[in-house]
Structures are given as structure tokens and as C-alpha cells.
């Protein structure tokens, strides 16, 4: 962690084309180019789907779909649509699957004076995500299945969601270690390898949140719990709270967010001391994230279709749990302050 400025981290440009084929059928393609984990600006096809709405309250989509388990995440690429210069990393940083190739269906019903909607979706992930210090984690073939229920009435919106992610391949950083554990011939070490593995395991995510918007006030509260049968990620809780107030063209806001994972350490059962015990401890510790962030910022809508945002994040990382960080130094004290400034346009 050093001092410095970069114009790359949050830069993106996107193109979206909607084509209405009939009154019921529409085709949508969206490509976004952003400074990605590999350090380049390669464009990525984020959506490409056909939607069919035989009735105004029923819609089926087929193709490459954005994922929206959380209330905002299907539009995280469109800065103009939210208050933050940087959405809370504690919460959104772990959501790595941005799109799936599959299908979804949305039902809407009027319930009292509000609108209830149910969305079911399923498909396959097809992307690579960084998993430092190892090679990229290829999610190709990973299956995603989920549902969310939304109710919106007047100033209120609440949503709950469930997602199951069945991982196909092993985390690259784990591969040599798991092989070494199994090669010992010890049943306890092999059992530990099975319990650590991510390949073939299902990550389950339950989320719950609410949004309140009244006149100039805006508040959001979100909670998310990820669980799995892998020791690397047995439980990971995260959440955030946002409060914003619009005063003319300015909207100052404050955000508190946090993530906390459970570190389930276990020994190999081999005679001590041995190098594998240490390697297991390091590998499991490296998969942890425990941090809190306080953010203060403001959005300034200086003209139609464009805004400028500034934000200061004060981040505190606990117990060296730096899973969300890249190139963290061992002697880092876990404190960081990030200043961000963004400019958003929509055309």
C-alpha cells in the first residue's frame, strides 16, 4: 500500500443497444470496457439477451444476463445511477460473478398498493476472477441458481435473495497444497484437503435489504451472508448502511460497511512441526476478509446527464485478513484512506 493517484481503477466506458423486434420481444446487448484485474482495457460482453414479455407482468430473458442479487449490482457499471464514487468494497467486492449465461423469469403482481415481484434465474458463469497470490480463478462451468423477492410500496422497497453457486474448478492457489496433503497418505491430512477444497462445493448466499426514499432523503441497509462447506469460506457476513440527503444539485452522503469471515483453522494431524500445517494456516488465513469502512462523500449534478462525485474512504483491516486486497505487504498496519473522484455521463 503506498501513496498515489490513478486514473485507471474506476474508469469504464460502456455501450448498450436495445432493439425492439415486436411489442413483446426485445434484444439487448451491452459491452463494458473497464480497467480490469489483468491491468488492461479489454471490452467485455456483459449482456446479450432476448427478452420476451407475453404479458406486462411476466418477462422471460434468455442469453447473457447481468446478475442482480443485490439491489444495485446489475448496474454497478453505471456510476450515474448511484450516489457513490466507489460502491462499498466490503459489500460488493466479494460479488465477483457479474453475469451468467442462462435464463431468468420475472413475475410481477400488484399487492395492496405496492408491487411484488419474484425473479428466478439460472445459468453458468463464464469469467475469470483474480485470486492473488495464485493464478486467476477460472469460473467457467460454475453453475448459478437463485431467486429474489422484491416488494415496493410508496417510499419503501425491500428485497430478499437466495443464490447457490456450484463451483467447478479448484482455487488455483489451493491446487498444489491440496495435492501435497493428499500425497502424505495420512487420512486426516486427506480429509482436511477434502474439507478445504472449493471445487464441487456449493456457495450459498442469502441477502436481505431495504431502501427508503422520501423527498430529498435516501437510505439503504443491506445484509449478506455467504456460507459453504469449504473451510476457506465457511461463513462470510457483510453489510452496509447508506444515508444521503439532496440539497439542490449537491447530495452529500455517508456510508458504513463491514465484512467479517469465519476463519476455521484446522491442523493436518501430521507429526509437528511440519511445513504443511504452516502452509494450510497461511492458505486459510489468506482467504479471509475482515474489515470496516467509513465513507463520506458528495455527488454534484452539474448538468443534465452528467455528475461529479467525491468520496473519502477510511478503511480498517483486522487480523491481516486481506482477501479483498492485492499485493498487501505483511508489515502493513491495516489502515488505509482512499480519496476518489469520478465523473459520470450517460448518453
Amino acid at each position, binding site marked *: 500500500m503506498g501513496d498515489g493517484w490513478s486514473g485507471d481503477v474506476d474508469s469504464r466506458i460502456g455501450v448498450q443497444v436495445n432493439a425492439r423486434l415486436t411489442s413483446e420481444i426485445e434484444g439487448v446487448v451491452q459491452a463494458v470496457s473497464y480497467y480490469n484485474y489483468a491491468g488492461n482495457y479489454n471490452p467485455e460482453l456483459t449482456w446479450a439477451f432476448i427478452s420476451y414479455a407475453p404479458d406486462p407482468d411476466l418477462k422471460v430473458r434468455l442469453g447473457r444476463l447481468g446478475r442482480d442479487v443485490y439491489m444495485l449490482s446489475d448496474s454497478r457499471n*453505471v456510476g450515474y445511477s448511484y450516489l457513490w464514487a466507489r460502491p462499498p468494497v466490503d459489500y460488493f467486492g466479494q460479488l465477483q460473478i457479474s453475469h451468467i449465461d442462462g435464463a431468468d423469469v420475472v413475475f410481477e403482481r400488484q399487492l395492496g398498493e405496492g408491487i411484488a415481484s419474484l425473479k428466478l434465474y439460472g445459468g453458468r458463469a463464464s469469467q475469470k476472477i483474480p485470486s492473488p497470490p495464485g493464478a486467476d480463478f477460472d469460473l467457467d462451468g460454475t453453475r448459478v441458481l437463485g431467486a429474489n423477492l422484491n416488494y415496493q410500496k410508496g417510499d419503501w422497497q425491500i428485497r430478499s435473495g437466495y443464490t447457490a453457486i456450484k463451483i467447478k474448478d479448484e482455487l488455483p492457489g489451493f491446487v498444489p497444497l491440496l495435492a501435497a496433503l493428499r500425497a502424505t497418505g495420512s487420512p486426516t491430512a486427506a480429509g482436511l484437503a477434502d474439507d478445504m477444497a472449493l471445487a464441487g462445493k456449493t456457495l450459498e448466499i442469502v441477502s436481505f435489504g431495504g431502501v427508503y426514499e422520501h423527498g430529498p432523503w435516501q437510505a439503504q441497509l443491506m445484509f449478506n451472508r455467504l456460507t459453504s462447506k469449504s473451510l476457506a469460506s465457511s461463513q462470510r457476513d457483510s453489510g452496509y448502511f447508506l444515508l444521503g440527503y439532496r440539497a439542490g444539485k449537491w447530495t452529500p452522503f455517508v456510508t458504513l460497511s463491514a465484512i467479517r469471515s469465519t476463519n476455521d483453522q484446522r491442523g493436518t494431524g501430521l507429526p509437528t512441526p511440519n511445513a504443511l500445517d504452516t502452509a494450510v494456516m497461511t492458505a486459510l488465513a489468506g482467504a479471509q476478509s475482515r474489515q470496516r469502512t467509513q465513507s463520506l462523500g458528495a455527488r454534484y449534478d452539474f448538468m443534465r446527464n452528467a455528475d461529479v462525485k467525491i468520496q473519502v474512504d477510511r478503511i480498517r483491516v483486522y487480523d491481516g485478513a486481506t482477501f479483498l486486497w492485492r499485493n498487501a505487504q505483511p508489515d502493513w498496519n491495516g489502515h488505509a484512506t482512499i480519496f476518489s473522484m469520478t465523473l459520470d455521463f450517460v448518453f
Partner: protein
Amino acid sequence: MRRVASLLLASLLLLASASAAADLVVVTNIASGVDKLTRAEAVNIFMGRYKKLPSGMAALPIDEEGEKAAFYRALVGKELPEIQSYWARLVFSGQGSPPRQMENAGEVIDIVANNKGAIGYVDRKKLSPRVRIVLDLAQ
């Protein structure tokens, strides 16, 4: 230059609406099957949350350029940049498209009078018997 002029005009309108808020009424087609709309139902339709009229007919919401700011301020207490950003979120997440944009009350009345599911808003002074009032925002 035109932009400056329209900005000036917009701020004048803003001043005008602050002193004497236009009496906006929500109107539908005579054959829409809707006699009355609650404020919550109007919010659901104009904010793209629900795409049907209470009669079950597919809704076709219409915005009017000149009254848009006053309308959304009266309906949901939001300014135009917020409405814009709200729609950016929905459009860029494939969840819908904003109301059709019309230039003036005459155009709104034409489209509402000619489409059974159309729903728009006009200043009460510019009302026509070709459409039906379903909600008075001044009340």
C-alpha cells in the same frame, strides 16, 4: 444559445411553479376502463414499477417536457436529475424504459385520446374532453 435560452426558460418556469404550482391532472383514455387512480398507483406506473393499468390493460405512460419537473416533484418529491438517474439504473439493467417523451400538452392529449392504455398528465387549463381525469395532483 438555444440551450441557454431553454435553461433560462426552465428556471423561469421553476420560479413560476414555485409561486403558483400548475394544477396538474393525470389523464387516461376514455375507454381505458379506469375511473380513478390512487397516487400510489400513479407512482407505480410512472416510475416503471408496474406496467398495467388497474383495469388490467397494458399501460403506456407519457411524459410532457414542460410539466415534467413539476409533475415528479408533486408525485414523488424528486428533482429531474434524480428521475434521470433512476431511469439510467433501470434502462442499464434491462428492467424497462422510461415514459415516452412528448413536447406539449396537445401532443399528450392526442396520444392519450388515440391509445387505450396511454396515461399522461397535463395542466388542468389545457384539458380536453377527449381524455378522462383520473387523478388530481393538486388535491
